[in-house]
């Protein structure tokens, strides 16, 4: 079986670089689009941090060379024939996505929300209504905080983590040359909003910008 890391512009693989379980990286090309994989006889794709970091490390080193569409973790195909079929069948889609993300990286920004102060509710319905209103105010505040970042990105995508979470998170597709000003703006936002926890991680491969209906 083969484990798939990324669809790419034509790339060269450094055969000293290793994928999951230290398997050597391999690449094939079909229709002007490359695919990077490793071959395994046995592979249990549990999403454990070491495997995840290794998958991402492969994406990162490819990103330095070329446009990259990272695969979702755990994509396994029977063999390279199956992979060539995928590249032929979906070549148009992949070339379009590559043109969207080429030259860019993904930055992840998270704004921690402070819990709403709890007033004594008169009944259950009032309590829920107050909680929803407080939650909406917090979401709107986080949106306002993040608004200055959006013009610095080619595209943005929310990363919803579920309504019970304490954070708003958003992904930004940023051209490499714009990363420094973007990060400077994140620092400026934190200085202006000292009561919020703002975190920024990256640069990531463009995981949030290679799905079906993303712009």
């Amino acid at each position, binding site marked *: 079986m083969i484990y*798939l890391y990324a*669809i790419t512009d034509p790339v060269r693989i450094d055969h000293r670089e290793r994928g999951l379980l230290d398997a050597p990286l391999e690449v094939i090309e079909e229709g002007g689009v490359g695919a990077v994989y490793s071959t395994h006889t046995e*592979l*249990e*794709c*549990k*999403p454990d*941090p070491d495997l*995840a*970091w290794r*998958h*991402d*490390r492969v994406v990162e080193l490819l990103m*330095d060379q070329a446009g990259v*569409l*990272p*695969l*979702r*973790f*755990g*994509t*396994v*195909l029977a063999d390279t024939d199956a992979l060539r079929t*995928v590249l032929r069948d*979906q070549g148009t889609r*992949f070339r379009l*996505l590559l043109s969207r993300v080429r030259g860019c990286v*993904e*930055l*992840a920004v998270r704004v*921690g929300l*402070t*819990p709403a102060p709890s007033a004594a509710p008169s009944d259950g319905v009032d309590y829920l209504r107050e909680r929803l209103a407080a939650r909406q105010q917090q979401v709107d505040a986080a949106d306002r905080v993040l608004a200055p970042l959006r013009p610095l990105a080619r595209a943005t995508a929310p*990363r919803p*983590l*579920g309504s*019970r*979470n*304490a*954070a708003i*998170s958003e992904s930004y597709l940023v051209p*490499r040359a714009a*990363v420094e000003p973007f*990060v400077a703006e*994140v*620092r400026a936002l*934190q200085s202006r909003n*000292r009561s919020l*926890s*703002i*975190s*920024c*991680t*990256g*640069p*990531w491969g463009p*995981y*949030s910008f*290679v*799905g079906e209906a993303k712009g």
Partner: protein
Amino acid sequence: MASIQLRLSLGDGDAVTEARRHDTVVGQQRDIALIDLLDRLLDGGVVLAGDITLAVADIDLVYVGLRALISSVAAAEREGVALPR
């Protein structure tokens, strides 16, 4: 191109410089980077439909774990836990 050093600003507004790679990230910053990593790898990326089956087990458990981790990091920040520099 070297990994860009990004500042992770947490809680008290003072910036902490961190590299993204997990072997140089410490403590709670490692937790945040791991959350962002797993969120992207498990819920993002190209999905090959059709005959391709994702060979990932226990995704629901991972999401439960992620939410718990996010809550615990946020709770620590609220309580003013001193963060490593």
